[in-house]
């Protein structure tokens, strides 16, 4: 144990996620049980009553996301947790949170789908659903943890980002990460930043919950029950929150909710870089797949291929900056994913032919083996 961490403990990824939420100040959780996410709700139900917060098990996931958005408007820091089927049910209200600009965190511990799929097996198949699951133009923030420690730190990040950007944020965990147990030393409370949404200045008379002109900083979000009464709607609205059909106002609103996040893509991007200095083959991976890919890099190096790993922590907004740089250095990019190529499309889009991009998909419900990724890469480099 050092000053900056607490005593080492064995924690499960889902437990670490719940602890991270509490560390970030989440004081309201609503959820509906689903494998492989249920432990998060269980820990929250155990801790929140003791910590001055509230837990409720709702009748379904639609109600769960609705309840957290309502609670957030009443000033709480909020989270829910689910997996594929529940994530699908939440989509309409995720869009509500996006347009109404209400901070909330949705944890999706991904399992194999579609539909009931393989409830107890891992997948990374909700990457595009996280981005485009709800209808209409919007932007999304999604982070993908690769370890128990990151389940903690990234949940803190998700809460902070939700509060800063007043938007729904998704933690894209997966069954392997959620159920894995590791010995971790969590950071001590003083060492990480906890952000909360801005509040209106005292004595502000005319409170506007939304931007009134382009490029304006995001206004503070007053809590229901304080001194400002305002209107919140999923209809396209003006700066005061009232429905509008004025073309300029509608256009500004939609560009605003997209721009406030897409405009920060490079700033929000976060990577782990492994053996990239001299690499001419790049493995691009995230989540549990990235853990395996690290071993594959070592294997490839042993076999004489100068491979390196770029592990994305931020999935959405997708930043091309680092990949573009690396595309000048490497000849081949391999994108292993537990889906049939959901993020590799983004990689291809930003690399734009500057290097060969090969998607390696896996949808049999199992985690990759290091051999699988290394073997595929060997073949791709023609050895």
């Amino acid at each position, binding site marked *: 144990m050092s000053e900056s961490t607490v005593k080492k403990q064995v924690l499960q990824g889902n437990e670490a996620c719940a602890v991270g939420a509490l560390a970030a100040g989440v004081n*309201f959780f609503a959820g509906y049980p689903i494998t492989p996410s249920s432990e998060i709700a269980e820990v929250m139900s155990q801790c929140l009553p*003791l910590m*001055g917060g509230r837990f409720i098990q709702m009748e379904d996931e639609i109600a769960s996301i609705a*309840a*957290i958005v309502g609670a957030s*408007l009443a*000033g709480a820091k909020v989270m829910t947790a689910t997996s594929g089927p529940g994530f699908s049910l939440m989509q309409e209200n995720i869009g509500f949170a996006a347009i109404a600009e209400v901070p909330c965190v949705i944890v999706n511990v991904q399992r194999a789908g579609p539909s009931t799929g393989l409830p107890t097996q891992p997948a990374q198949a909700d990457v595009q659903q996280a981005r485009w699951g709800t209808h209409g133009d919007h932007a999304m923030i999604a982070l993908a943890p690769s370890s128990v420690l990151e389940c903690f730190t990234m949940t803190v990040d998700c809460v902070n980002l939700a509060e800063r950007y007043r938007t729904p944020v998704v933690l894209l965990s997966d069954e392997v990460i959620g159920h894995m147990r590791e010995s971790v030393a969590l950071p001590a409370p003083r060492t990480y930043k906890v952000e909360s949404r801005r509040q209106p200045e005292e004595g502000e008379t005319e409170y506007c919950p939304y931007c009134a002109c382009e490029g304006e900083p995001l206004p503070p979000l007053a809590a229901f*029950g304080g001194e400002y009464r305002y209107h919140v709607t*999923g209809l396209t609205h003006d700066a005061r929150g009232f429905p509008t059909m004025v073309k300029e106002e509608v256009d500004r609103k939609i560009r605003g909710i997209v721009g406030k996040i897409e405009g920060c893509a490079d700033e929000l991007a976060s990577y782990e870089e492994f053996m990239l200095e001299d690499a001419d083959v790049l493995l691009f991976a995230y989540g549990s797949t990235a853990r395996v890919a690290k071993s594959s890099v070592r294997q490839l190096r042993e076999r004489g291929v100068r491979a390196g790993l770029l592990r994305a922590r931020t999935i959405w907004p997708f930043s091309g900056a680092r990949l573009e740089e690396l595309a000048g250095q490497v000849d081949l990019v391999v994108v292993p994913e537990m889906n049939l190529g959901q993020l590799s499309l983004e990689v291809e889009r930003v690399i734009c032919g500057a290097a060969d991009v090969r998607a390696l998909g896996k949808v049999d419900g199992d985690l990759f083996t290091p051999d699988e990724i290394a073997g595929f890469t060997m073949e791709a480099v023609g050895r």
Partner: protein
Amino acid sequence: MSEAIEVARTYLRPGKKLPTVWCGGCGLGIIMSAMLRAIAAIGVDKNKVAVVSGIGCTGRMPTYVDFNTLHTTHGRGLAFATGVKLARPELTVIAAMGDGDALAIGGNHFIHACRRNIDMTAIVANNQIYGMTGGQYSPTTPHGKRGTTAPYGNIEYAFDTTALAVGAGATFVARSSVYHAREAGLLIEKAIRHKGFSVVEIISNCHTSYGRMNKFASPVAMLEWMRDNSVSIKAAEHMDADALEGKFTRGVMVESDKPEFIQSYDEMAERVATDPAAVANVKKVIQSYDAMADRLKPENG
């Protein structure tokens, strides 16, 4: 100044929000003013009222009233309201819903809200039709009546909203109609004062859709129908089934005492806070429990 004008001046949103989107003569205005009179009678601070709705003509009600207002997604008003109330129990939370909103797409949330007994009030504006989308039949459209998706007459059977609420465990259940505007206001007032989950169904007129398709000549004809086809619960006690056929009852169906959710939650929280085993279990998971618990306290949040 008359009471109505006073209430309108105090509680309707100033500025450009009026006139409403509602058709002239729509019963929803009567329901809105009944709600406002109830709030005025109780005298709740406007800052401490939250009005939540789903989607539909009824769903537009929050737009016009000067409270904390939340116009959500179709059917989900009660689920959002649940979050608002749990995060700020000091708020008076009212969910205004249409019949489709409350009982079709939101039916699951409705019965579970009844069961949980959180101290909120649900107002179900029952116009027996999907008003906003143009008159399709709803779960309260009577058997045999027409809707734009029941052009040959509805072959389904209607929910009895109040019986459903009673069956699901609501601790205050009442019904009135827009013809009986004064009674409606008094029942909403009782409902808001009730500690626990309360449901008030108000039979309303959608003459534009329901009326047109079911041979009501005007809003007035629909109001007269409510007058002639409803009986107070008291009067109904002395009537047999034949006499009650085709009529709806008005008044308080249920008013009972059951521990309210938030009260029970807080009692539970107090109990476990002094239970060393519970605290130890939590500290096992959360090593920095004390520092974190501090941060979660509202005054430090």
